[in-house]
């Protein structure tokens, strides 16, 4: 089996949480290279806990979570948790997070359609544009798996549609994605796989099956 054929991330009967507080139990799943999986569930269900465990910020309380050796991750945080918006140009901001900034920043901005705004201040950007900048930052170091936390939060419908099309395009180019959202229509627009997070469990489901069941706190 070649390295790229190994699962990018594997959860094996993992128990996830904080300290003694269990948020998700018996999590068993695999994220393969080239996957596009949407983690769907109501607010507070444990979606971000799952994401933080993949990022390596949380260790499983029990069971096993493993990442393929040398796996490169990219992360797009929730817009409102990305820190304050600094009075800094877009290209300068991206250059903070990349050793080979001169070569990498231009193509990263072009890939998300933001090259024309490279010199603009972060503070002048709309919510959708800022989220594109965050996506460009996440792609700077050539990630094999992108993790996105509520990526379309506070976007207007037009910006959201354009952003989802951008994500689909990046996935077609071969980047695996794990996207956390509570918005059903985001899952409908993107999902190849749906992972439902509810009642302390994660289960693989289909979009149609998920749509038929009642879910508190999930926008249809």
């Amino acid at each position, binding site marked *: 089996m070649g390295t790229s054929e190994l699962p990018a991330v594997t959860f094996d009967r993992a128990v996830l949480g904080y300290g003694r507080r269990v948020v998700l139990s018996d999590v068993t799943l695999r994220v393969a290279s080239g996957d596009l999986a949407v983690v769907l569930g109501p607010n507070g269900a444990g979606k971000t806990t799952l994401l933080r465990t993949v990022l390596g910020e949380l260790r499983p309380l029990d069971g096993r979570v493993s990442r393929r050796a040398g796996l490169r991750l990219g992360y797009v945080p929730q817009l409102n948790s990305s820190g304050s918006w600094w009075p800094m140009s877009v290209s300068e901001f991206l250059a903070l997070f990349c050793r080979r900034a001169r070569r990498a920043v231009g193509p990263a901005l072009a890939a998300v359609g933001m090259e024309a705004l490279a010199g603009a*201040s972060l503070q002048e950007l709309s919510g959708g544009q800022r989220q594109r900048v965050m996506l460009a930052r996440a792609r700077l170091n050539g990630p094999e798996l992108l993790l996105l936390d509520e990526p379309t939060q506070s976007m207007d419908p037009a910006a959201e549609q354009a952003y989802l099309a951008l994500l689909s395009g990046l996935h077609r180019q071969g980047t695996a994605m794990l996207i956390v959202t509570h918005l059903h229509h985001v899952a409908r627009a993107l999902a190849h796989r749906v992972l439902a997070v509810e009642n302390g469990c994660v289960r693989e489901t289909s979009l149609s099956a998920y749509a038929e069941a009642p879910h508190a706190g999930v926008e249809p």
Partner: protein
Amino acid sequence: MSQLLHYAGAVEAVLTLLAVGSLLGVSGLPVVLTGRTFTSLVLASAAGLGGVVGHVTGFPVWLTAFAFALATLAVLELLPARLTGPDGVLAVVYIAMTAAATLLASKLPGGDVDLLGLQFGNILALPRASALRTAVLAAAGLAAAVATQRRILAAAGDQTCARLAGMGPRLALAGHSLLLAMAVTLGLDAFGVIPVCAGLVVPGFIALRLSRTRAGWIVVAMLIVAVTTVVGLVGSFALDFPPGVFIAGLMAAAATVVWFMRR
């Protein structure tokens, strides 16, 4: 100006203020960027209290000031953000430390601690050798602050993304804490507690309004320090004011003008 230059130790004083002021300004940029300006007040008051404790206990003043500043930064970093986030909490800590330092100093026999000097600084009273040593240390700190600034800003902006980019954010933030503690300790000798607060905040406050680039911020911050230091030292000498607080006043005036221009 010519009168000042004839004053023994004036050249060393200018060099020291420029080096220490630049170190304060550049290492304070991430503090201003992340909106933690009250941290600078707490830090300066902690170093001030440490200095007084050094006088009381007989330990080297620079050592106790540095230790208090570093310990305060460590506590602020380790405490949950919900406790250190509200400005009111930091203000109370600042007031408590300033009050403790003043009360402690007032009880020392024979006025061992120059309270006015501690609060507002008196660079012209600093021995020339001490001033030069402070200037050299500050220049080394400034070089380190400039060299590590990209990592520090990345870590301050988003620790997770900095870690994924292989930038070691915890090490960068720990290094920044060391630089801040060093800047404040050196600043106590040169400027005094109040001007140290100004030096940590005002150059960054102005730089962020006049430039959109990291290099631009550093250049503007150092220019603000240079202009206010030279003008302030000459002005304070001519008018017989404490130089540190005169420089801080000029910085505040410059910040007010820039704020009106770039609201």
